[in-house]
């Protein structure tokens, strides 16, 4: 069976050997670990694309545009199906560089945190979870601090 690592739910298949099919990633991983399929990498998981994003990441101020769950998906695919990907080692190091560049930026975001809003365009699910406890708590404290003067008046 051949399978593509893409998202949607619904009825999957048909899964006939030489054909590609779009199935959820958990199913692809399951079949892959039983050696029943090859996984076709999503269009963003290749050296050229990630190199391009890394260049943008280091030269521009904002977060570059990546799939919302790129960290999770690439981790799973590199763990399970690294033989289906081109140049997995290069991919790993690129992803690591990307992660570090983005992490530095999200920490920088803390400087601009106030009690009302913080915009984080293109932030990814993993990065949100990384900063969630600290940011939510800080913002909550700022809210309380901002509320008190008006309550005292």
């Amino acid at each position, binding site marked *: 069976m051949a399978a593509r690592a893409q998202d949607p739910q*619904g009825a999957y298949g048909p899964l006939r050997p030489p054909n590609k099919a779009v199935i959820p990633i958990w199913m692809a991983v399951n079949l892959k670990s*039983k050696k029943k399929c090859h996984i076709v990498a999503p269009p963003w998981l290749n050296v050229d694309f990630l190199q391009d994003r890394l260049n943008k990441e280091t030269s521009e101020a904002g977060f570059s545009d990546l799939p919302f769950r790129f960290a999770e998906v690439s981790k799973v695919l590199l763990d399970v199906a690294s033989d289906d990907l081109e140049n997995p080692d290069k991919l790993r190091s690129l992803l690591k560089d990307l992660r570090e560049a983005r992490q530095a930026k999200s920490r920088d975001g803390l400087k601009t945190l106030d009690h009302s*809003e913080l915009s984080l*365009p293109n*932030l990814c699910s993993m990065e949100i979870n990384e900063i969630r406890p600290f940011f939510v708590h800080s913002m909550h404290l700022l809210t*309380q601090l901002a509320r008190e003067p008006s309550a005292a008046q």
Partner: protein
Amino acid sequence: MNWDEEYDLIAAKGAAANHFIGRARNALPDDDDFEISPLPGPGPSAQPAAVPLGLLLPTEDETPLQQLIRHWTNERNCPDILPAQEELLVTILDHIRRQSQTVQLLREDASTSEDEHVRIMLAQTEMERVKFIVRSYIRTRHYKIDRYARFITTNAELQRRLTGGEREHASRYANILDRHLFKCVLQSLPPAQAHLDDTAAFVPSMITQPDKTRPVFVHALQDCPRVRLPDGTALEMRKGHISLVPYHVIENLVARGEVELV
């Protein structure tokens, strides 16, 4: 608090009307997609022989499962209790029930082929995944209900967002907790200090209620109308925008499904 009982209740109640429509819409596909060897031998031959791998068919643009996942992440990230998704859960539980029956039938059949077993395994994996989400969704709600039980019993608006079973659980839980506190401590205090709902000045309320000022990460699913931020400025979110804002700011957008919490 047993969701199963509630399920049976609802299934019995709404079996005729809209529930049937949901059932028909999510009926198993008459699948020609998989070459399934027909089940020989006895057994209810009217049962669908195929194990459909797609648990849920897309409705308009989102499958019931995707909807549930969205409601689940919203519920988990939201400081308040969101409206219960009773109908959606019934649809999904109904589907799981029928699918597990089919799987059971196929497993018991000795003539089921090797290929078939792979498919059964996949269908079972998917059922387990869905069950996990359903369970986590319900537990998240129960955690909040326990926490705000006393508040819920006094707040009609919040009660409307709960299912019948959840409401009953909340009032029973609040009752038991009150009695427990009374027996342990309050009965030996002077009557003036034995209340659980004092509203003294400069002291937070004794009844825990959802803190809507808690910030949440919000992801705009579509272009949203402007919302007013606490500092007085307006925020207009375009599709795909991600932002950290206090929950009360975007409460209405969540209720209308224009944004999701991530």
